[in-house]
């Protein structure tokens, strides 16, 4: 139910141009890897060429002798904890006892010139005894598999269950059992990992590097260097693309360490190939699913055995596993289920956050299963979903009370009108149509979140807004400016967004989990309330009356027929030595307790999406061409339709790459094979199908002006819908992504 009817707004629901677009188009926006600091040292990373091995020695003497070299650092130089990782700090900053993936950093070099640094790199010697390499989930699980960590190859194992699956299954009309696999996917952001670091006059260590979560970076740096948080500043914006791949630390700690040790400014930027070798990627998955239903398609039970490939260490692995658990039941009423979820170590780099965060992996399994159930039961694939989706107020599989499920129902009904095959474009083309539904929680589920944000009323006629969500291209700075403009009734041009920077942005958390609008926007609106409350009192003092007689509208305070502008009130406040900066903290609504066996399941607020994918398959060449994609999204109230549609479109094309062509591969020695744009092709503009993005009218009372989130929803169901469309076209179902031509003919 839309309790607050959607109003006519002045600054939201509007596709205003992104506020950073002018600088970006002109090329004047300075990314952090563009920064040139005077007197800076050039830094490089010495990486392992062995994917798995025991380190016997790292010899740096020769490297240190190179003229111009200022530091050659190994694990011995780490002042405090030699570990980082967003969830468990188990990733060595510099490897010490073992190397566990090809490209793992062993040493850092900083020198006056690039030439000296590279010369020094070539003089570092390591003595590593190679150990057998674990290439895949299957190999990691073998009985005599080499142990990557002392505790073995299972990083996390958990079981989540409800009801009696055996009983449900034995009375079911149909039981299907399938194994689904998805590949490792690279983020391939345009700006590789990099940045600069320096110590300023106040002794503060400044780290300016592309990232997504500056306050967490700060904590991770502080742990490694053993210096207090107040002595560290992290700035992450602007970042040239991230998609989750810069959520955990990439270069930040190395930069900090080098600046701290050399007392000199340092610049460290990974090459494209280093990004390919040592940057993060999406978890590969292998999911065994056994699902049962009654004759009318009602789901009775779901049994899932989930394996995610975490690579050599855990970055976000444990929480990615949680999202894959939450997603494997879809948005469906499933009374009985058992989910056996495993995070597995291999020697394949390090898997970390990537748009969708475990959801695309599980979604491919459950939505492919739904399509096959529909096929087997001869029920329309939209109808079978309509029969199973949870309704508002119902208690979901994870004991959460479902909110606003009407959006999903409406989207499915709309999809009926879009669900048809296109006419083939030639005699060898077969066309097909496929469908899938996506669900994704906004934010961190049951994990406590207390995002803070601030606004400053600048008497000269500006409202400055501050939050630590990073704008890495998704447009959060523009969206949040619109929210504040709407709230205060002042034009966007009067709003100045400061880039996320721990120097002055309160801790709003980072940009991830489609949370920035909900959390950052939520906190900003509270900060606006605080400001108005305080300024109203000041306005009352100006009119010599009481604050309850004062009203506020569109930038002015009113008393009877008189008015004063918000800026003039701020000027008075300031003149009296008071601050015109107002900060507030948003207590994000959540369930207090996680479902047994999970860290953060369930979420309270979900985004929904329905995708209809129309493909054409060349039956002789196996070439799959997605021609049209419809996406109907329920993302709550839409703050900026153009930006939101851009997020939907971007997710779809990234999902098409994931479904059709992208796959990170390693060779027998654990060396990554596709590490740049030549060897790892991503879709380009001419691969874009026609995309029709539609938004359901929807309003989530818990979010700012009814907004939920948008960043991740569209990538999630692409794989299952493509597989379904291809099956419709050529009668062959795919259980493994990517569906490259040679898998289907």
């Amino acid at each position: 139910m839309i309790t607050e009817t959607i109003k006519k707004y002045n600054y939201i629901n509007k596709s205003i141009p992104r506020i950073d677009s002018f600088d970006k188009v002109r090329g004047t926006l300075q990314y952090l890897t563009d920064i040139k600091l005077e007197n800076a040292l050039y830094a490089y990373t010495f990486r392992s060429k062995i994917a798995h091995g025991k380190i016997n020695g790292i010899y740096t003497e020769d490297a240190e002798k190179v003229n111009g070299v200022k530091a050659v650092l190994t694990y011995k130089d780490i002042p405090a904890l030699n570990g980082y990782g967003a969830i468990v700090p188990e990733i060595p900053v510099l490897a010490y006892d073992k190397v566990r993936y090809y490209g793992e950093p062993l040493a850092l070099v900083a020198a006056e010139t690039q030439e000296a640094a590279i010369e020094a790199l070539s003089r570092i010697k390591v003595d590593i005894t190679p150990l057998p390499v674990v290439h895949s989930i299957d190999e990691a699980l073998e009985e005599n598999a080499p142990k990557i960590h002392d505790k073995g190859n299972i990083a996390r194992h958990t079981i989540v269950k409800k009801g009696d699956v055996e009983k449900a299954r034995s009375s079911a009309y149909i039981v299907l059992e399938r194994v689904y696999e998805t590949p490792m996917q690279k983020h391939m952001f345009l700006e590789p990992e990099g940045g600069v670091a320096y110590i300023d006059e106040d002794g503060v260590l400044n780290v300016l590097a592309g990232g997504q979560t500056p306050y967490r970076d700060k904590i991770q740096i502080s742990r490694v260097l053993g210096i207090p948080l107040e002595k560290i500043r992290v700035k992450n914006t602007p970042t040239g693309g991230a998609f989750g791949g810069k959520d955990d630390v990439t270069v930040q700690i190395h930069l900090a360490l080098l600046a701290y040790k050399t007392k000199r400014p340092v610049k460290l930027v990974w090459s494209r190939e280093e990004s390919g070798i040592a940057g993060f990627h999406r978890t590969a998955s292998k999911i065994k699913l056994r699902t049962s239903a009654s004759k009318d398609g009602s789901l009775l039970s779901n049994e899932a055995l989930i394996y995610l490939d975490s690579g050599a260490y855990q970055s976000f692995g444990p929480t990615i596993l949680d999202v894959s658990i939450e997603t494997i039941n879809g948005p469906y009423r499933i009374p009985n289920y058992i989910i056996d979820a495993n995070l597995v170590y291999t020697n394949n780099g390090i898997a970390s956050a990537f748009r969708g965060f475990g959801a695309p992996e599980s979604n491919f399994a459950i939505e492919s299963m739904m399509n096959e159930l529909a096929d087997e039961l001869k029920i329309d694939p939209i109808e079978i979903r309509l029969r199973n989706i949870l309704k508002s107020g119902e208690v979901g599989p994870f004991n959460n009370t479902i909110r606003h499920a009407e959006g999903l129902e409406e989207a499915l009904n709309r999809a009926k009108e879009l669900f048809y095959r296109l006419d083939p474009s030639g005699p060898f083309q077969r066309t097909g149509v496929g469908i899938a539904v996506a669900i994704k929680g906004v934010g961190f589920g049951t994990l406590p979140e207390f995002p803070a944000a601030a606004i400053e009323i600048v008497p000269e006629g500006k409202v400055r807004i501050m939050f630590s969500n990073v704008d890495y291209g998704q447009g959060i700075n523009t969206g949040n400016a619109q929210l504040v403009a709407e709230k205060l009734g002042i034009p966007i041009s009067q709003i100045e967004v400061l880039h996320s920077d721990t120097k002055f942005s309160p801790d709003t958390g980072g940009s991830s989990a489609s949370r920035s609008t909900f959390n950052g926007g939520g906190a900003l609106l509270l900060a606006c309330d605080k400001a108005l409350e305080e300024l109203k009192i000041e306005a009352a003092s100006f009119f010599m009356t009481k604050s309850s007689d004062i009203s506020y509208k569109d930038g002015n305070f009113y008393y009877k027929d008189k008015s004063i502008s918000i800026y003039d009130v701020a000027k008075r406040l300031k003149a009296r030595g008071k601050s015109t900066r107002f900060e507030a903290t948003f207590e994000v609504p959540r369930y207090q307790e996680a479902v047994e066996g999970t860290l953060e399941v369930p979420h309270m607020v979900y985004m929904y999406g329905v995708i209809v994918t129309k493909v054409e398959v060349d039956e002789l060449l196996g070439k799959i061409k997605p021609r049209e994609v419809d996406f109907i999204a329920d993302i709550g109230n839409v703050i900026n339709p153009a930006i939101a549609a851009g997020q939907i479109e971007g997710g779809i094309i990234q999902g098409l790459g994931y479904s059709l062509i992208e796959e990170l591969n390693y060779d027998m020695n654990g060396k990554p094979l596709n590490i740049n744009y030549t060897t790892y092709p991503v879709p380009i503009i001419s691969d874009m199908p026609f995309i029709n993005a539609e938004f359901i009218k929807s309003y989530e009372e818990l979010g700012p002006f009814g907004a939920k989130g948008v960043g991740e929803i569209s990538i999630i169901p692409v794989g299952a819908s493509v597989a379904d469309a291809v099956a419709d076209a050529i009668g062959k179902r795919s259980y493994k992504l990517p569906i490259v031509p040679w898998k289907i003919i």
Partner: protein
Amino acid sequence: MAYERIEVYSPHSLAEALELLSQKQEALRPIAGGTDVMVMIKDGVLKEKELLNLSYVPELNYIKETENKLLIGATTKYREIRRSPLVNAYTPILIEAVRQIGSPQIQNLGTIGGNLGTASPAGDSIPPLFVLNSTVKLQKLGGSREVQIDKFFLGPRKTVRQPDELITEISLEKMEPGSYYFFEKLGLRSANAISIVSAAGIIGLEKTTIKYLRLSLGAVAPTVIRATEAEEEATGKELNENLIHVVAKLASEATKPITDIRGTAEYRKKATYGIIYEALYKIMKGFGKKVEYGVENTG
């Protein structure tokens, strides 16, 4: 991550270039557009420390015609080829291939001589050169020779070029007026993709009878190959579905593909069949591309 000094020689005449090459032989690596060489430098796999920059050698950049042939200078860029009225008129099959090479940026720099020099079995200008019965001119100080295109390549990245020779010219047979042709390339995405399989074909038809067929295949053997058995099978036959099937099958059997991250060997064989089948089917149905020059407009 090699970071080494590289010397670049930029001669302003062919004579000067050949002189340098004869002195330095394999120590000197020719560079034209640099779209392959620069990648090798960046990857640290270029052995040579000295480059012979051909960009300022005026004698190597031209497109000319003789009575039966087109002559293209080695450093002629793809963009120039695409825009050339001569190439468009007499060897439009080359245009088909060139417009699918890389991206506009690559076409602005890349040269046809460079494609031959790289000698990749996936080089996209090469299959058309095979069916155009081309010859490659190799020149050295005080001499030159012409090599037929099918004798030019020895294997992936290997050619008969000697260290003191430059590729200076490619000569192509003009296509017969009214003949049909195709160039098809299969990549993992719609543009800027390395060919998984490519094929070029020219077919001369007398009503529905095949006077001659020339077929070449890329990325399915150590070098680009001609599918001679398929060609012979087709000659003098009726162009119908049965024949197309036989020809496509023979072409597929002529391949010796490998498995790599861009496709399995088995797939390359199947796709060869598919590409040829579809291209000939299109021509049979009257939707093929036709050489237009010299054809009297009877309509």
